[in-house]
């Protein structure tokens, strides 16, 4: 199934992209998808193993199981205000 990754701030700089898509096996969790992204190597391998994530714009646990076409956002520590 296809997962759309969204990257912000420091993570965007590391990966060098705002978004990218990867195909992961059905039944993959958010953690699995992050592992797949880090396995691309380069700056992506410097992403944290367990980042804060949102699935389809909602904060989610890393053990959450993804569905086809989910948007998985990797969120650096927030710094608003």
């Amino acid at each position: 199934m296809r997962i759309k990754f969204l990257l912000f701030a420091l993570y965007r700089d590391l990966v060098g992209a705002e978004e990218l898509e990867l195909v992961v096996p059905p039944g993959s969790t958010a953690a699995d998808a992050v592992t797949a992204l880090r396995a691309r190597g380069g700056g992506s391998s410097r992403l944290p193993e367990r980042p804060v994530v949102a699935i389809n714009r909602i904060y989610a646990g890393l053990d959450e199981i993804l569905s086809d076409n989910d948007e998985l956002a990797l969120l650096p520590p927030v710094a608003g205000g």
Partner: protein
Amino acid sequence: MNSHCCHRWPVVDLQSAMQPALITREAIDTAAVLAAVSAPAHGAVALFLGTVREQNDGRPVSGMRYDSYEAMASDVLAEIVAEAAATMGEGEIVAVHRIGELSIGDVSVAIAAASPHRAPAFDAARYIIEEIKLRLPVWKQEHYNDGSQRWLA
């Protein structure tokens, strides 16, 4: 509907003219934020403004870039405001967070809470800024005088 039957002119309503939770790239109009919550029933208004400081950790800052996961940030800010409003009860709340390139002194966030009484107004404004710091998907990158920059965490 029913426009054939009678002359109904739109009522200008400051309170509905401003969304209670807004992520914007425009400069924040503090007076408009205050006006949006003010009403004859509300004797107390608490306003919080966050502005870009000229230095951080002792290092001079030349400017600040705010980035966000905009679609999600709008939802999260609306959620935070709704939580504060539920606790506050009667009253009005507006919270606006600016993103994009900001200069020293620019208002990055404005939160106004109006209530019949002062404690709920203060508490609502305080709650919202604390929750923004905890969970609003916004990031800032400081620009320094030497041309370098850094994402804050």
